[in-house]
Structures are given as C-alpha cells and as structure tokens.
C-alpha cells in the first residue's frame, strides 16, 4: 500500500466514522421521531380539529407538566437511576404553595418560589443523600418517598382540595406573553437550561461520567456522591415546577394530582433514547419522547379513542422503544448474543453518547 492511498484510506474511514457517529447519536430517538412525525401527519389528515393553532397550543400546555418533570428525570436516568417520587413531590409542592399563600399569607410569587426551592431541597436532601451518600438502591428509596410524600400530602391536606385564588398563580397556568401561554415559556426555559447544563458544564460531564462508570468517575476524583445528590435535587426541582404549573392550571392544590406522572416521565425519557443503564442520552430525546406521548394522547382523544386504549398503545410503544435500545447496545445487533460476546467484541461501537455530537 502506498503512502497516499493510506492517507486517503484513513480520511475515508474518519468520514465514515463521523457519519456513523452522527447517525447513531440521533438514532437513539430516531425511531420515535419518525413515529412522532408519522402520527402527527396521520392525525392532521384524518382529524379536522387536530392541526389547528388552538389544538397545538392545547397539546403543548397539556404536556407542559410532564415535560418539566421529564427534563429533571432525564438527569436521574442519565446516572442510571429513576425517580419514582416525582408525582408525590408534585402534589406536595401544590400543598406547600397553598399553605404558604393561604395560611402563612406570603405573597403568591414568594410562595411559589419557596415551594419550588423546597422541591429541590427535598429531592436532593432525601432521595439524593440516601442514594448518593449512603449508597441505597434508587428504586427502594424513591419507591419509599413516593409513598411517604403521598401520605404526608393526604394527612396535611386532610384529603381536601384547597383553592389558591391569586392572579399570579392563575398566570402560571393560563397567562400569556406575546401570545404564547406561560406553561410553554416554562417548557422552553427548562429545556434550554437542561440542555446547556448537560452539554456545556463540567457538572453535565460528571452526570455522564457517573452514569457511564461510577467507579472510574470516583477514582478520577469526581465527587460522585455530590453529583447524585444534585441530580435528585434537579429531579425534585422539575417535579416542583410541574407542581406549580399544576396548581396554576387547577387554581387549587389537590392531593390527588400527579399519580401517573413518574411512570409517564420515565416512559418519555426512555422513549427519548436515554439508556436506563445510564451514561447515554439527553434532553433532546426526552423532548421528542414527551411530544410523542402528548401527540398520541391528544390525537387519540380527538379521534374518540378511550383513555384506556391510549394506555395500551403507550405501553406497547414503550416496550418497543426499550427493545430498540437493547438491540442497539448489543454488539452483534441481535438479542441473546450479549452474554456470548461479552469481552470479545468491542463493548461499544463508535457511538457518541450525547445528542448533537
């Protein structure tokens, strides 16, 4: 082989690798993105009332709570965990707003700000410390806090809904700025912040490192405990923001809200291609996952399909998406070969784990 062909060969290989890298980064949620576009087009054609600005606005505001919770949840899943307590924490936040505003008489904006802050502190202080500092299983801990917070909410509220009558809180649910509803602004803001933090800070890098290989991260001097605590604080923050939007939408704090949020958020994150093993994925995929769930539910509702059938469809698609994840991670591209191939084939192909790389 002459020197020139060798150089050309290398250049070509680099190009191919780059192309493969870009493809595999988007391919983590490409299937769901294609499905999303597909059902969007399908509903636009078959349902007159689907592709109207009022319905799109409605679709987006109806997923706004799921969206902000899922953004926070993405951080947790990236470290290889799941936060099951977000739904109960969401309800607890509503109650804190109501207590601070109605009973303590604080101004509404301060009540909301303190409640959202409390969500982060509770998420990091309980889930985060137990998982990050004491090394308990994320599943057991967040399952425990799911039940615990719901219990506290029921006791504290006496299972009654309390109204929160305030123009500020009302504005969170129904206000508009330059013609766009507040919940959509909050969605945009959480997405941008989450994307920037994950992509362009050392903390974001820590999240991927801890999720990819916590032992190697620790041995490199990264404070893995602190990273985990912060990740659960962020998840708590997302849940609390969701609680604030929920309170605004209802104009009240209800002890019943948010029960199906943790599983829906986990579904959205996993649909979006973030691996439940951690270290791979990101919030762009989560956005696609949330929009997919929202569009499916919105379109099926317009088409008159019962919410029970919506659940069936969502469940099937979630399992399909996780199966796709498994196939992608398997070196030989098939099920069942993983055990055989362990330690032989490359453990991972040229696959950037972050979006847009």
């Amino acid at each position, binding site marked *: 082989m002459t020197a020139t062909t060798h150089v050309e060969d290398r250049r070509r290989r680099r190009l191919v690798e780059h192309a493969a890298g870009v493809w595999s980064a988007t391919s983590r949620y490409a299937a769901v993105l294609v499905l999303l576009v597909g059902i969007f087009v399908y509903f636009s054609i078959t349902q007159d009332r689907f592709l109207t600005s009022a319905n799109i606005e409605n679709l987006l505001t109806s997923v706004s709570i799921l969206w902000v919770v899922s953004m926070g949840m993405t951080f947790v899943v990236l470290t290889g965990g799941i936060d099951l307590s977000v739904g109960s924490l969401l309800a607890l936040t509503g109650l804190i707003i109501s207590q601070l505003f109605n009973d303590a008489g604080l101004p509404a904006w301060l009540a909301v700000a303190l409640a959202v802050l409390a969500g982060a502190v509770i998420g990091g202080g309980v889930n985060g410390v137990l998982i990050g500092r004491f090394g308990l299983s994320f599943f057991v801990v967040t399952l425990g806090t799911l039940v615990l917070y719901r219990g506290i909410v029921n006791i504290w509220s006496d299972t009654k809904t309390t109204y929160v009558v305030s123009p500020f809180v009302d504005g969170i649910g129904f206000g508009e700025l330059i013609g766009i509803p507040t919940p959509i602004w909050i969605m945009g803001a959480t997405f941008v912040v989450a994307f920037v933090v994950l992509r362009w*800070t050392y903390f974001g890098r820590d999240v*991927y490192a801890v999720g*990819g290989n916590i032992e190697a991260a620790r041995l490199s001097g990264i404070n893995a405990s602190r990273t985990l605590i912060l990740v659960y604080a962020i998840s708590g923050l997302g849940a609390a923001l969701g609680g604030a939007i929920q309170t605004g939408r209802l104009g009240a704090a209800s002890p019943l809200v948010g029960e199906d949020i943790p599983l829906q958020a986990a579904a959205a994150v996993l649909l979006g291609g973030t691996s439940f093993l951690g270290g791979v994925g990101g919030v762009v995929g989560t956005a696609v996952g949330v929009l997919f769930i929202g569009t499916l539910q919105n379109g099926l509702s317009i088409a008159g399909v019962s919410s029970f059938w919506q659940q069936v469809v969502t469940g099937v698609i979630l399992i399909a998406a996780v199966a796709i994840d498994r196939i992608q991670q398997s070196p030989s591209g098939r099920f069942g070969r993983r055990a055989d191939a362990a330690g*032989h084939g490359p453990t991972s192909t*040229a696959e950037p*784990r972050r979006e847009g790389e």
Partner: protein
Amino acid sequence: MTALLAATGLHKRFGGVHALRGADLEVAAAEVHALVGENGSGKSTLLKILSGQLRPDGGTVAFDGREGTFANPSEALRRGIATVTQETTLAPELSVAENIFLGHRLAKRVGLVDWRRTRRLARTALDRLGLHIDPATPVKRLRPDQQQLVEIARALSVDARAVILDEPTSSLTDDEVEALFAIVRRLREEGVATIFVSHRLNEIFALADRVTVLRDGRTVGEAAIGDLDRPRLIHLMVGRALEEVVAPETAVEVDRPALRVRGLRLPGVLEDVGLDVGAGEIVGLAGLVGAGRSELLESLFGLHAASGSVQVAGREVRRRSPLRAVRDGIAFVPADRKRQGLVLQMSVRENLAMASTARTFRLRVPSAAREAAAVGRAMHELDIRAHSPQLPVSTLSGGNQQKVVLGKWLATRPSVLMLDEPTRGVDIGAKGEIYRLLLAAAQEGLGVLVSSSEIPELLVLCDRILVMFRGRIVASLTRAEATEARIAHFAGGHQ
C-alpha cells in the same frame, strides 16, 4: 501421532472483530499441550469453542474420532472435555462433594440424590489428586489452591479425556504450583490430554510437551517444547524480536522521598507496612494474588480506611480520598482499566481531562482550549493512537486505553504515581511503550510505585522491588539483588 483433539481452520467473528481467522490445534492423548499467545490473540475464543461455550463460524473440530462442534458446555463435558477456568466456578456454600457432582447429580431410582454414593465417589476423585479433605466441607472454607483442585476433581469425575487448564497458576504459591504440576503429570500417565494456558513462560517450559502459538487469531507455530527456547517463543507470539527497554541508573534522593509510608495497617489485610519511594525512583511491589499489593495501593489512594502515616513530598496526608488525591499529588492507575480506569462511552478527551479538571468549578464550560494543553500534550507525548480525541475511548486498543488512563493522571502533575498491573491486557509492543513512559516520568522526578504479578516486568522497570506476603513487606531487593527466583522465593512466604 493420532490426535485426540483436532481443531482445524477455526473462524469466529464478533461484530467487526475477527477473533479467530484460521486457528488450528492438535492435541494427542497423554500430552500436555501449551497454548500461548498475547492478549487478544484468540486463545480464550478458541478455548470457548473447545468447551462448547461458543460455536465457530467456520472450521472443524474432531474429538476422539468424532467430528462436530459442541452445542453447549454440557455436551463438551459429556463427550469428555472438561474445563478449569481462572475464576473458580464453584458454589461456595455447597460442600466439596456437591460441587464435584454439580450438574450431573447421582440419583437413586426414584429421583432422589444418592448422597452416600456421591460422597464415596467424591472421596475417590479427591484421593486421585492427593487432596485429603473431607468431601462434606463447604468449599468457601478451602484455600484458593484447594478450590482449584476441587475444580480439577470435578473435571475428572466425568472421566474427561481432555482437560483445559486456563491460567490455573495465577493465584498459587510456588509450592502449590509444583503440586499442581505433579497432578498434571500424573494425569498424563493416565492418558489424559491437558491443554494448558499460562502467561508465565517458565511454567510452559517446565510442564508442556508441545506448544501451539496463536497470533491475531491464527496458529502461527506448533512445536515440541525441546525445539524452542524463550526468545524464539516470544518471537512467535509477538511476530518480531522484542526491543529491550533498559532502565538507566538513576540518582535517587531518598532523604527527601516522594512517598513515605509508616505503620500502615488495614485489619486482616495489611500489617505494619512501611516503605519509601524516592523522587525519581521506580519501586516495584511483587507478591502473589491476595498478598495485599492492590489493597496497599488502594489504601494509599484512600479507598480503604487504613491507619498509619503517609507523607507525600514531605507533607503528611491524613484524610486520604480520591477527591483529595489531585491536590495531595497522588495518582493511581487501577488494575481494571475498563471497570475502574475509564468511562468507555466518553471521548478520549473527556477521559484525559477527567482527573485534572475534577476540582474545577462545576458550572464552568469545558472548553477545548482550556483542555487543549493537557489533552494535546498527552496525545502527543504518550503517542496515543486515536483518529481524534473526540472519539469514544472504547474504540481504542487496550494499550492506547491504558495510555489514556496514564495520561489522565500525568495531567494532574502528581508527586507520586501508583500503578496496579500497568500492562494487563496490553500487547507486548504497547508494553514497551508504557515502560518507556514510566521511566520518563521517573526521570522528571516522580516517585513511581508499581505493583505487578509479572516479575520480569518489575525486573525491567524497578530500581528496587518490595516483596509482599500476607499483608507484609517481607523483602526489599535492589536491582542488583533481584532475580525472578529470589522474588518467587520470598513471595511464597519463605525466609
């Protein structure tokens, strides 16, 4: 010679990796046949095909006159090929007898386990190996060498015609190795074929009758042991003569050591360990697996709560922890690169910058410019062969991955560099490069502490070698005093 086992032209692919591309192996009955090759040469894939764990993509296997590969491990066992691997596959809570008959329980007619016959046959199998232990003892109470023998007893209990021993000696003392070899020789007299894998070449010359050499998935040589010598065998394994790395004589400032350890204790593991590593000195840690070498390094890095005094560059380091290691000037390259050293999905650049930026304010932007110095220097000086530092580190070869781990720590500008098995899973070519990098680091004034189970490696690298036995440092040998035999002598617990 009629072959008992003949594998011809085996091919096996894993995704893009061609693990075997025409491997042959012929083993006669009553023969000890060594299978050698570097890491990644296809040894384990070949063994897995012979033991029924994998099926080849091409090629044939004939055993005892019958053609055909094995569908699964139990078929291989039934036809008479038994495997003893490096990690014991015994159930620790079960008795020796139960372990020996694991997988082929002796049943009475109604389907219940025939315990009396199980114990009697276990007794016979153990006696055959000269192992005098009660078959009712739980396996977890046995020493590692006894456990290994139980595995061999299990292999023989099925009347195996061929036994595969995959690195059986890595955790054994010299005496235990001798005892194992005596058993293998006795099996040879009984007509059993043994396929023996070891990375210790002197063991191969001591035990084997014939040798098959694998390189890059191909059989590159097959010879009687008498027709080979060490350099020729290495030449076959590596494909070229090995460049000798020669460490220069160094002037060491031992009065101002880079690392000074006094009275280090970790209950049950380390006993009163004291050592000095001078600035510019390379000190080796030798000893058997389980002697406490890894635990010593890990304790110095703060992974275990060991008591005692540790000074780095003259400063006492009290609260040791990986979080403080960079500040304290301690660097640690762990033994298991994939599990402890690297985040495989992350890029070469992110891995290289991981330790030196671990104390940076976390909301700062990791800019290429800020890391360019550390990353560029590492890529250049360590000669890391990657198309781009943006590629996932998993795409690099083992040697280049190890250089990334090394570069990650050199970028923190430590006073002490500790390495555990620095060349495990690295091909011989990359080994030489890593040696050179360590020598260069020492010349720049670092104190280097290397733990290795490969004594020749320590002999090449180290100014001084400390030998550990059961948690203590039992000998300190200078470069002039150290020989392989002497180190093995102390490592086996002899005075």
